[in-house]
């Protein structure tokens, strides 16, 4: 069955071609159905392969589709690698993907241009599957670029809005910066190890000395790529702006799958990162900074999707901290649970926005608990999962990260713990403001309020169930139950950080986080529901730190001042002085001077045949004399 792995990306590609080519000729209701079916078929095939790999496939299998690039010694087959890491990613991508496709049918119901939306969405899934299936860095890179493209297309889906187009461009350009790092890293890998294939590279790397400069450089360059795709400092600002796209897109691309590509890539290259503790330390520090700063920004955002976006950036930071301390399975564990609960939260937010006729501002919501019962219940589960209440999924993965970080560095642990408190605060703030209190929207919105259709609520319920039970695949050791995920992933890891904290510490950690969470719940309930404290209507009223945070630390403005403006200045200087003043004059000058010269020379052509012949004969004689002399 593993030989049929090519079917997995084939279905979404087929869906893309079918929907994209037939386009308007397809009945309106059909495009969503086809797209969902295609991804679901991929999911079925993935599930079958997953079962097979889980049963006996500890040996990675390589499925070669065709010989792709073959020049001299270099041979890059277009091949897929089926091992335990890729099957897990397959399950997440196709599983969450098909749920979100189903949800999109309901969400995009009122929109024009269904086929374009669904064909892009299918194309995205296709590239994402290439990314996780590729058996060498080049196939992975193709997928990597492809998902970036689809992200751009879908953020700019409503291309008539100039702000949305700018957000799409921003995402694309920031990703390009990261992609350059990745590309350089991949080329350096070839230079160092002489191959692009995962298996060959890692085999060669195992005999490499630790901390060699080449490996550190590779790791850092690959991490630059991950910074772009997975929205880490300094390249994270595109992700909050990417919320311009339709909400299911935010859920699929900018929460569950594409942004975790960076983490997948680092986990895949774990052999290299183990060899370079220096680079790993940088990964951990960048992740930590991102987790903390994004969480503080999340505290003061008033757009429901913006809060979730900063939350995603922050959670991705968590995963990178885990990667940096060498806990690769834990990072992947968090990728999985995060895919469940963040997709759930985004879809729930989408359901709220749908009910509110497109309104995204928290200050206009409130009291939606009664009108949106299913959305409310599932959103609550998502909130508790991300805040880390046991037994929801987020609790297990987050605690595991915290425990691993404690062994690495208590200072980092402390910052990360504060971050998780902040996470709970902003998520509960979001929850209370949305679902409790009085309705604060317009009369028109109030009349229009309705629970979403079944196509939207079914994915919500499924994801809510997954967010509830998803954590049990990785129970902490203190419960003496098997950690299924760690066992499952063991064959693809090289040297794993197996040290675990003491049992007392584990229980202490759980107890403290649970107690803190309960305190935060009551505190935020008190503030936002009982005292009914509303966020300021106008950001200008804010003072001090709150103002700084509400303005996202002015990072966009700083980038604008430090990078965009100088770049524009240089461009216009180069254009005016070098291009127009020098190069243009050189080119035009050549033309003008030749024109003038020919204007003089043309008088040689008198039209007098005798003259021509005379000069011809003189010429012949001169040539003759010259040949005789020389």
């Amino acid at each position: 069955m593993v030989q049929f792995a090519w079917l997995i990306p084939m279905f979404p590609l087929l869906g893309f071609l079918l929907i994209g080519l037939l386009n308007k000729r397809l009945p309106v209701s059909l495009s969503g159905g086809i797209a969902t079916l295609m991804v679901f078929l991929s999911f079925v095939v993935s599930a079958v392969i997953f079962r097979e790999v889980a049963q006996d496939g500890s040996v990675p299998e390589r499925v070669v589709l065709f010989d792709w690039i073959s020049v001299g010694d270099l041979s890059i087959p277009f091949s897929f690698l089926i091992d335990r890491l890729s099957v897990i990613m397959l399950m997440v991508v196709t599983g969450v993907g098909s749920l979100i496709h189903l949800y999109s049918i309901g969400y995009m119901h009122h929109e024009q241009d269904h086929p374009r939306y669904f064909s892009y969405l299918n194309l995205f899934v296709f590239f994402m599957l290439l990314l996780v299936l590729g058996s060498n860095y080049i196939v992975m890179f193709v997928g990597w670029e492809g998902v970036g493209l689809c992200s751009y297309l879908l953020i700019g889906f409503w291309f008539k809005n100039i702000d949305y187009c700018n957000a799409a461009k921003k995402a694309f350009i920031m990703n390009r910066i990261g992609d350059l790092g990745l590309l350089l890293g991949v080329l350096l890998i070839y230079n160092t190890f002489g191959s692009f294939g995962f298996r060959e590279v890692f085999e060669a790397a195992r005999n490499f000395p630790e901390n060699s400069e080449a490996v550190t450089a590779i790791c850092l360059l690959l991490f630059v790529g991950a910074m772009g795709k997975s929205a880490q400092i300094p390249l994270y600002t595109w992700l909050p702006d990417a919320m311009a796209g339709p909400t299911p897109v935010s859920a699929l691309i900018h929460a569950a799958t594409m942004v975790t590509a960076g983490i997948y890539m680092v986990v895949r290259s774990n052999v290299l990162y183990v060899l370079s503790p220096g680079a790993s330390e940088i990964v951990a520090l960048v992740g930590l900074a991102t987790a903390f700063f994004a969480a503080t920004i999340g505290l003061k955002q008033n757009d429901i999707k913006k809060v979730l976006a900063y939350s995603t950036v922050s959670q991705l930071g968590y995963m990178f901290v885990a990667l940096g301390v060498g806990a690769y399975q834990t990072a992947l564990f968090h990728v999985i649970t995060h895919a469940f609960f963040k997709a759930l939260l985004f879809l729930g937010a989408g359901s709220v926005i749908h009910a509110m006729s497109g309104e995204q501002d928290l200050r206009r919501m409130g009291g939606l608990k009664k009108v949106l019962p299913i959305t409310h219940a599932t959103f609550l589960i998502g909130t508790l999962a991300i805040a880390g209440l046991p037994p929801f999924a987020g609790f297990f993965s987050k605690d595991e990260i915290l425990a691993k970080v404690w062994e690495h560095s208590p200072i980092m642990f402390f910052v990360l713990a504060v971050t998780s408190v902040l996470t709970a605060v902003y998520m509960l703030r979001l929850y209370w403001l949305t679902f409790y209190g009085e309705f604060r929207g317009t009369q028109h919105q109030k009349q229009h309020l309705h629970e979403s259709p079944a196509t939207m609520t079914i994915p919500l319920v499924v994801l809510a169930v997954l967010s509830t039970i998803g954590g049990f695949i990785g129970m902490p050791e203190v419960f003496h139950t098997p950690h299924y995920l760690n066992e499952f992933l063991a064959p693809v890891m090289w040297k794993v950080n197996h040290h675990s904290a003491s049992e007392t510490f584990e229980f202490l950690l759980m107890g403290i986080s649970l107690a803190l969470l309960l305190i935060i719940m009551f505190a935020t309930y008190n503030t936002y529901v009982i005292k009914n404290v509303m966020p300021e209507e106008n950001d200008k009223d804010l003072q001090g730190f709150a103002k700084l945070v509400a303005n996202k630390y002015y990072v966009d403005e700083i980038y604008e001042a430090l990078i965009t403006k100088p770049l524009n200045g240089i461009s216009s200087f180069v254009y005016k002085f070098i291009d127009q003043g020098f190069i243009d004059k050189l080119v035009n000058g050549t033309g003008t001077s030749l024109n003038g010269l020919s204007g003089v020379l043309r008088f040689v052509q008198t039209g007098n045949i005798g003259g021509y012949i005379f000069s011809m004969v003189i010429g012949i004689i001169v040539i003759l004399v010259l040949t005789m002399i020389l």
Partner: protein
Amino acid sequence: MNSILQVIPLNYYVALAAILFSIGVMGVMFRRNAIIVFMCIELMLNAVNMLLTAFSTYHGDASGQVMVFFIMAVAAAEVAVGLAILVMIYNNIRTVDINELNKLKW
């Protein structure tokens, strides 16, 4: 076996051909009547033809003479075209003075 052409030494042929060719060149350069110019061109061609024949004989290789036949055939065709052009020129401007044909300039 010696050919009759070999009765005269080769140098004589070369000198004669050079003289004929020079006369042709001078004619083309300094005469104004198009027909005379035309005849001078033929003269140049035939000077070359003669040289070819002579060399070919002295070299014992017939291909030079074959070449001469080709040249004559082409020259005949060229003469036909050239004379036709001259007739047309005369019909149009009532003269064959080549210095009158100087419209094609700058």
